[in-house]
């Protein structure tokens, strides 16, 4: 399974599919009056707009790193093409240094590196930029798994209640009672390492929170007069769920998606630190932070890899959280 998701064409296809679904969600939501009011509020929220713009830049960079085209007997990404002339050195070099980082045998560098190089001589700046793809792929794949799952089960539990609710509650209580990190590691070890596997593991463990949230909101909405009216008019359960309930809980899904995305990016770093994350050769902030374990104890200390990865991660996670807060404010019914 991991191998299938790790194929380039699958990732490209899923990327386009993800962007398409996201666009469809926005377009369909824009017809909803509540969404329109939220959109108007959001346009006036400077913090929200700035953080949204930063997220868009990350997404764009990630998408450009994912898109590959044929180049010299192989393929190269758009971002990779920009960095095609950046040389690979023999080992560490400090930012803008002229030689490798070694007091015993410093070697002249083939080029200058804005943020230095890592243990294998790869340019840290290029690695930091290229790692946006890993965050994008992971966040996108995982959301594509856990959001439909959590939303569907939440609505079914909240709408049908009785034995349906009992079963779904039982399942998510069981999933939530297993220590998450152990479950993640176990799934990844069984399915073998890979970005696809990591997404599957995070997706199958991450839907519980959203499911609980949507279940509660659906129960609340089900008591509203518009649902009673739809029932009185003889509409089918499917129609009530898709046409009435789903649009009224989608704002929660959107907020959860944005805030959950930051958690997924951090989870990648955590899992990589534990040795079950991104595979070898992947540009990833998690791998850079993991490598820094030994780099920080070096003398002289190698600080640039950790710093670059931390700032990149911090920028994305902070922006996602601020944007999520802005969305929550925009959709808040008490806002008046």
């Amino acid at each position, binding site marked *: 399974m991991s191998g299938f998701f790790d194929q380039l064409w699958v990732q490209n296809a899923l990327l386009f599919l993800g962007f398409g679904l996201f666009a469809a969600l926005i377009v369909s939501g824009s017809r909803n009056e509540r969404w329109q009011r939220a959109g108007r509020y959001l346009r006036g929220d400077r913090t929200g707009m700035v953080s949204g713009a930063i997220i868009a830049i990350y997404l764009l960079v990630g998408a450009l790193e994912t898109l590959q085209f044929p180049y010299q*007997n*192989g393929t190269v990404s758009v971002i990779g093409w920009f960095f095609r002339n950046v040389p*690979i050195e*023999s*080992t560490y070099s400090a930012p803008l240094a002229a030689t490798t*980082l*070694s*007091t*015993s*045998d410093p070697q002249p560098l083939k080029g200058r590196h804005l943020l230095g190089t890592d*243990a*294998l001589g790869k340019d840290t700046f290029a690695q930091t930029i290229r790692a946006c793809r890993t965050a994008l792929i992971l966040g996108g794949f995982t959301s594509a798994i856990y959001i439909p799952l959590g939303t569907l089960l939440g609505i079914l539990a909240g709408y049908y209640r009785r034995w349906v609710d009992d079963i779904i509650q039982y399942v998510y209580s069981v999933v939530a009672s297993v220590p998450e990190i152990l479950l993640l590691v176990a799934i990844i*070890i069984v399915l*073998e*390492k890979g970005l696809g596997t990591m997404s599957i593991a995070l997706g199958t463990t991450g839907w519980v929170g959203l499911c609980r949230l949507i279940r509660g909101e659906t129960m609340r909405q089900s008591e509203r007069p518009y649902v009673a009216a739809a029932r009185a008019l003889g509409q089918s359960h499917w129609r009530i769920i898709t046409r009435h309930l789903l649009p009224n809980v989608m704002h929660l899904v959107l907020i959860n998606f944005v805030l959950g995305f930051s958690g997924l990016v951090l989870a990648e770093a955590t899992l990589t630190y534990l*040795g079950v994350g991104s*595979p*070898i*050769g992947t540009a990833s902030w998690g*791998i850079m932070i*993991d*490598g820094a*374990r*030994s*780099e920080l*104890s*070096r*003398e*002289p200390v190698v600080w640039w890899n950790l710093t670059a990865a931390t700032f990149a991660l911090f920028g994305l996670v902070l922006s996602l959280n601020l944007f999520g807060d802005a969305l929550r404010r925009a959709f808040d019914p008490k806002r008046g």
Partner: protein
Amino acid sequence: MKKVCLLRLAELSGVARPCLAAIWLLAFLLTGCHNDPNPKPWREKRADGKPWVVRYASMPEEVRSLDPQVSYDSISRMVLEPVQDCLLEYAPMKIDPYELQPCLLESIPSRTMNADGTVDYLCKLKRGIFFHDDPCFPRGKGRELVAADVHFSIQRLCDPKVESPISANLAEYIAGMTEATDAAKRNGERFDYATMKVSGVEALDSHTFKLHLLKPYPQILYWMAMHFMAPVAQEAVNYYDGLPHADGSRGEMISRPLFRFHPVGTGPFKIVEWVRGQRFRFVRNENYRTTVFPSEGWPKERDAVNGPLAGHALPLVDEVQLGIFRELLPMWLLTRQGYLDRFAVQKDAFNSLISATKGLTPKYADRGLKLEKAVEVSTFYISFNQQDPVIGTNKKLRQALSCAYNPQGFIDILYGGVAPIAQQLLSPGVFGYQKDFRNPYAFNLEKGRRLIAEAGYPNGIDPATGQPLKITMDTTANSSAERQLAEYEQRQLEQLGIHVEVVENTFARMLEKEDQGNFQIAAGTGWGADYPDPENYFFLFASSNFPPTGKNINRYKNPEFDQLFEKMASMENSPERLEIARKLNEILIEDCPMVLNFHKAYFVVTQPWSPETQVNMMLEGGFKYMTVDPALREQKRREWNAVALWPIPVAIALVIAGLGYAVYINRRRNV
């Protein structure tokens, strides 16, 4: 005095009272503050009034088992070695070639070849060697070591419940082992030590025994230098059963530890403290008379240190504190502060310690630190699966891959450039190692490109697909360093224009793949020798040694190699054996079932008070040979850890200024 103080405290005004109490509390808490992480020595002075000398050492993990017949990993052996002496041992200063010397035996056993092809070794135990004093013996006094204890150890190797990892290996050679094991299996896996004797160990008198081998096996002497054949006392094994007994002072039930966690040996030290996950503490065995410091074997430049110790009673120190450090950084920091006596230089501390000329940097040379180079008896390589339809059938392709790989970068990244590039399978110091031999398929990219074209893949392109040849490389990548190294190997091999796909595996999964032959290339493979003999290296490529029972994970099969190996394995060292070892090396290099990488080596830093007195990496620690000058250590520790007092007044001034500003702001707001 106490009354006066209390009265005075009671007389103080409201604000002063809590302040004074806080100062007292602070002073009380600070009395325990110092930066020495080592616990106090077991004793302050020896019985004769001389100072008690402690050696501080470190290891990276907790032990798994201290049962001599079971323990195989180097960490457990490091703890076992000071406690449990072996029949023979490695000479501490002889590494080129390695040499054995008697330990519990009076001399190296003499060999007799019998007409029926069997071999006998006559072994005489030294007299007057006693087991450690322990409650398992009557009145807690250790009894004398006798030949029956050796027989009991060999019986334990046959006991299915002991699960000795080398039982099958030795059963092939020591007469009666297979029969004893089979008898135990027929008896429901229960080994009856009274009736199931091993005929291969024949006691001639209380201190003499004869070891009968079914066929010539000169390597048996190396096994005698390992703990598997070390004698243990049956009383200790029976006593430490892990069950509750009425051992309490008032007859209450107390659980005894298992024997595998409570070794009772004849070695130079006894374990007196084991804080799980933190440290072992060994204290000198007062009755130890088995060995003394050697009188020769070291080069001239070591005369100043080793000369005065010649013939000296062992151990040289009274106590060894062996700390368990799972991270490298604390080890380096403690060495820098003088709280560890020896440090194996890792890549993270390399740049600050080692200069351009591969000596110590002036900062640490001025401190009096010394640098030693330690080469382990090991060889690491990248394995090719000889049964793979692409790699296994194409010798030129394997040679091309070997030529594409530059081990120097690998060594620079992981071992600070200190480990020697492996030019051959045998490591330095092993009989048959050729100092001047150069691998014709060592790194040479031009040659590699030529060879891959001859192999049928010009520029690395597979003519069948028109795409770069795709090869899968399996590896374990459990740490960032392993991941970096796998990526390095991938990049090196891809210089030929091929595509190398790296598959990361857990350690267990990797072993499974190796056993099943389910890989094309396996990175990170290698061999740390059990003993320094060519047989212990070349057996890795003998076709009789295929997995799952053997270690030939490459599944290399060459009748000529097999024939020569069989002949060489049972020979004593001789010019003829040397010639065969060379021929075996040539065959392997030409067939190229692996890409040779490096022999593991590193720099060791010793403190000015603890010069290196043993250099043999076959010893796991060699604590009994280690020495310390405690007075110099104390002096240097004081110098290196001088406390800077200026931060205290600065911090107090800052706090007062901050408080003053807060009060000022508060008053302004409230006015």
